[in-house]
Every structure is written in structure tokens, then in C-alpha cells.
């Protein structure tokens, strides 16, 4: 473990993070902190600002105000590729993959940035195995099902062994079987990596997370365990109620 970890410096902190689109405040003055090794879930109704929060963290959007610190270092002004190199990996809500390339090529391009030629080939085989993509290795990614493309995207993220992984709705479009496998996979990844997962599936969240952060209208409404949140009337009203009713 690094000094930062032993000193108890949070792996990720935001201070007053704000993102405005014209009149819409998509992320509103968010102070967010999580510690090394944590697996945090983000929940909140559609439009709550979860995806925008992720985009600000990875500088896909330049935040209107506020700071982002990763392991104590200020990364607010860093470019997207620099943030990736520091060790933040992200699986976006809409799968972002190289559609015209094969599964193997997708993961190879990702792996090769971190490793030499031989090592990259070895890593690719490992990732294909781990994500059960070996049989699809030569298929063009654009032709795969949504769930498969999500796995390819996760594969590209894992090649760099990031220290923090952001997953935006990883189980969307997955079968029950695939959700179970993803649950196991996330648990396994979390043994070595801190994670933030945006999800709607309550069973899934209970299975993976201890602490849950609730977003509402761009701001953090509350942070607690899933068990406590289920008893919280405010949360039920804005979010869980709707889900249970649906």
C-alpha cells in the first residue's frame, strides 16, 4: 500500500463540485469523499446528475466550479487522458468501445498502453478469460449485444489496473444470469480496487455495497447503509417508492 493509503488520505474527494448547463444545475455543490478500497454505490432517480458527476471527475466536462482530488492530488484541471493515466478508469453509461474493431483488438489497444508487446498479449488473454469473452475474441464489437459490449468495455478498463473504477449502470441490459456474474466480478475487482458504482437494481446494490450515496437534483441527499436507507422516508419518497411501485 502507498503512503497515501496508510496516512488515511481519501482516494477521492470533491469540494463544491458544480456543473451547470445553462440554467440546469446538473451537479450542485457536491462534497464527496471516499476512502481507499471502498465500494460505494450511487443511486438517485434519472436526471439526478450521477453520470454528469462521473463526467466531471474524468474531465469529460469541465466543472463550472469546485475541486477534485485523487489521492490528495488536485486533478481538477487535468486532461481526461492524464486522469486515466493517474489511475481512474470508467465504464460509461452508454457503452463506449471501438465498435469497428474486434473484441481482441479493443482490449489489446487498451492493454498495450500499459505494457510491452508480449506482456500486452498475455494480459489480453487473461482479461478475455476473466470476462468470459474468449469465444467472442474475433467478433466485431459493434455487432455484439449490449451486455457483451459492456463486458468488453469493462475489459478495456481493467487492462490498466486502475486504482479507482467508476461504473455507470453496469448491469443495464443484462440478463439475470449476467447480473449475478457481474456481482461476483465486481466483488472480485473490489479486492484490489476502489469503486463507485451507479445502479438502480436494489438487489444488486445490497449484494455489493456497504455505503450508498443518494443523489437528488444534482446534490447529495444522504449517505448511509442500504439497510438504513430503506427505512428512510425521504429516500423512499424520491426514489425507492417509485422503484417498488414500478
Amino acid at each position, binding site marked *: 500500500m502507498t503512503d497515501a493509503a496508510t496516512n488515511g488520505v481519501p482516494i477521492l474527494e470533491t469540494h463544491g463540485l458544480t456543473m451547470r448547463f445553462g440554467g440546469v444545475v446538473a451537479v450542485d455543490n457536491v462534497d464527496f469523499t471516499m476512502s481507499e478500497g471502498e465500494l460505494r454505490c450511487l443511486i438517485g432517480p434519472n436526471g439526478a446528475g450521477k453520470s454528469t458527476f462521473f463526467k466531471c471527475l474524468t474531465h469529460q466536462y469541465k466543472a463550472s466550479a469546485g475541486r477534485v482530488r485523487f489521492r490528495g492530488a488536485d486533478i481538477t484541471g487535468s486532461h481526461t487522458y492524464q486522469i486515466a493515466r493517474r489511475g481512474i478508469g470508467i465504464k460509461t453509461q452508454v457503452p*463506449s468501445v471501438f465498435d469497428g*474493431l474486434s473484441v481482441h483488438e479493443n482490449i489489446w489497444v487498451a492493454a498495450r498502453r500499459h505494457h510491452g508487446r508480449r506482456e500486452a498479449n498475455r494480459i489480453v488473454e487473461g482479461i478475455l478469460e476473466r470476462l468470459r469473452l474468449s469465444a467472442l475474441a474475433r467478433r466485431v464489437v459493434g455487432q455484439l449485444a449490449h451486455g457483451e459490449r459492456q463486458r468488453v468495455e469493462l475489459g478495456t478498463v481493467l487492462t490498466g489496473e486502475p486504482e479507482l473504477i467508476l461504473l455507470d449502470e453496469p448491469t443495464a441490459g443484462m440478463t439475470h444470469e449476467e447480473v449475478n456474474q457481474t456481482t461476483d466480478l465486481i466483488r472480485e475487482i473490489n479486492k484490489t480496487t476502489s469503486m463507485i458504482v451507479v445502479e438502480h437494481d436494489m438487489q444488486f446494490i445490497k449484494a455489493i455495497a456497504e455505503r450508498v450515496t443518494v443523489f437528488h437534483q444534482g446534490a447529495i441527499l444522504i449517505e448511509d447503509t442500504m439497510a438504513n436507507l430503506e427505512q428512510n422516508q425521504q429516500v423512499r419518497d424520491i426514489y425507492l417508492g417509485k422503484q417498488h411501485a414500478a
Partner: protein
Amino acid sequence: MTVLGVNLRSWEALGTILVLVVMVVLLFAGPQIFDLFTLFKVTLFVAMAILALSMGFIWGYGGILCFGQSAFYGLGAYTYAIAVGNIGESTGPFFLAIIVPAAFAALLGYFMFYGRLSDVYLAVVTLAVTLILYNFMRSTAGEEYAIGAQRLMGFNGISSIQPINWPGDGNAMLFPDEIFHLSMGCLILCYAGLKLLNRSYFGRVAVAIRENELRAELLGYDVRLHKLQTFTIGGGMAGLAGCLGVNFNSFVNPDVFALNFAAEIIMWTLIGGLGTLVGPVIGCIGLLMLKFEIGQQQITNTYLIFGGIIMVFVLAVPAGLLPTARQLADRFLPGLGLGGAEVESRREAAQ
């Protein structure tokens, strides 16, 4: 079947070998099979083919939509003419004709890529730069416009440009057949070089960026720098083409920067097929031959016919000649198992 590590079970590999063989045969047999006039013409085609390759590379592989690739061709041509007019020995000018356009591409690219210009704006800016060069060069007829001993000559253009000589001896100028050999040799090197580049780490990242810039950035690639490098390579290669092009008739004028020429290069690429290297070369030579033919008669205007052709292609063969031919071959000769990886997986998907 694998030969020298190349998997022959794909059109791609077969095609590469075939193209190289044809070019090497032409390299040696060209001066024997062509009369002198044809040899001049073929030499010009070869120079243009290098320009087509550069366009096929930056657009088809790098995803950079440059509508002013002719600017780098023109800069190469003028750089050679001006430098050789001053120096009188062609080795330095030859290399300057590559370096100057590459440097110009790097500078222009720096502002475009680091300024995060989107595709369409990039196309417009490159075209605008070309047209600015056109107007500037046309206005340099006065005696005050000279670089060293070489006047720029405005719209009349620079004529009697000294041809390339054997390195070191400014008096030992190359004969037409030797200029053909040099040009063909350059084309082979450019083609083979780009093939290797496209197979390399650099080339694969270029294609990945073409496919999805955001994902490339999220994986830690500096997309701006990578595109800048691709663009610079393309600029240098187009400059080389310009240098060889002026050796065809010892003449260059501002028309190399004109809208017509810029548009022709785009047509070559669209007709031949985006995403291949040979496609744009086929499109280039096909259209140039047609242009020469049309030029022989007075009935109709060249660009009227070109306009018609491009419309037919965009509507009927949108993928371009070469990719369409590959698809057809794969459909009608599936038993040969020649399909490339992509095609194969598509067949798997269909099953």
C-alpha cells in the same frame, strides 16, 4: 496458410503482396514497356499516387477529414523549386520538400487539434488555408517576391525547374527513366511504410481513435498528440509527392492550391474506398486517366463528368471500389476462405 508470418487467409494480406509485386515489376519494366511520353505521364501518376496514399492514411486510418491535402503537395512542389533554384544541387531541396510541408502540417495541426476543432471545422480550415495559399501565390508576380535567387513568379508559376540530380553532383541530372525509378521507388517505400505503420502499435491506436476518440482518451491516450503525428506524417508524404510532381514537367504554378485539385483528391479517396490504402490510389489513377482522355476532346467539361461520377459513386457504391470488391469477392468466393477477420466474424454472426 502463413508465409513469412503473414496470414494468407485474408484479402488484405493477399492484396498487399499483389500490389507490391505489381509495383516492383513496374519499377523495373516501366521504362521498357512505356514510350517516353507515356513514361512522363506514368511518373506523374506515381507522384499523385503518393499524394493519394497520404490522404488515404490520414483520412481513412487517422479519421482526419482534411480537405486541403493539396496544400502540402503544393508546398512540397514550391519548396523544391525555390530551394533547388537557390542551391543548384537537389539532395537538400528533395528533403526540404518533405520537411517543410511536414513542419507546416505540424504547426497547422497543433492549432487545430489542440484547439479541439471538430471534424467539419477542420475540413473547412484546411481548405481555407489552401485557398489562402492559392491567392497568395497568385499575387507574387512582382520582382519583390523572391526567396534568395528564386522569384516566385505569381500566377505564371515557376518553370524550368532543375530536375533531381544524383546526390552530390548538381550536373548529373536524372534522365526521365531514372526519375520514374525514383518516383516508383518512393511510392513502394511509402506504401510498404504505411502498411507497416498501420500494423504497428501507432497505427492501431490511430484506428482506435478514429473509432472512438472518447474511449481512447478514457484509456489514457493523448488523442491530440496522436492526431498531430498522423497529420504530420501525411503532410510530409504529400510534400514528397509535390517534389516528384514538379519533376514531371519542371513546372509549378498556384493551381496546385486551387479548389479543383483539392476536390479531386477527396474524389480519389471516396471513389477508391475510405479505410484502405490501395483504394485511393486506384481512384487517383482512374480519374487521372479519365481526365487525360477527356482532355483530348473538346465536347464536354472535365469537372462536369467528375461531378457525375462522384454522384454515381456516393449513391451506388458508397463504400468505394476496393471495399465493395472485397465484399463481393467474399460473397461469391466464400469457399476459398479468403475473408478477413472482420468479414469472418460477420459470417459467424450471421450463423
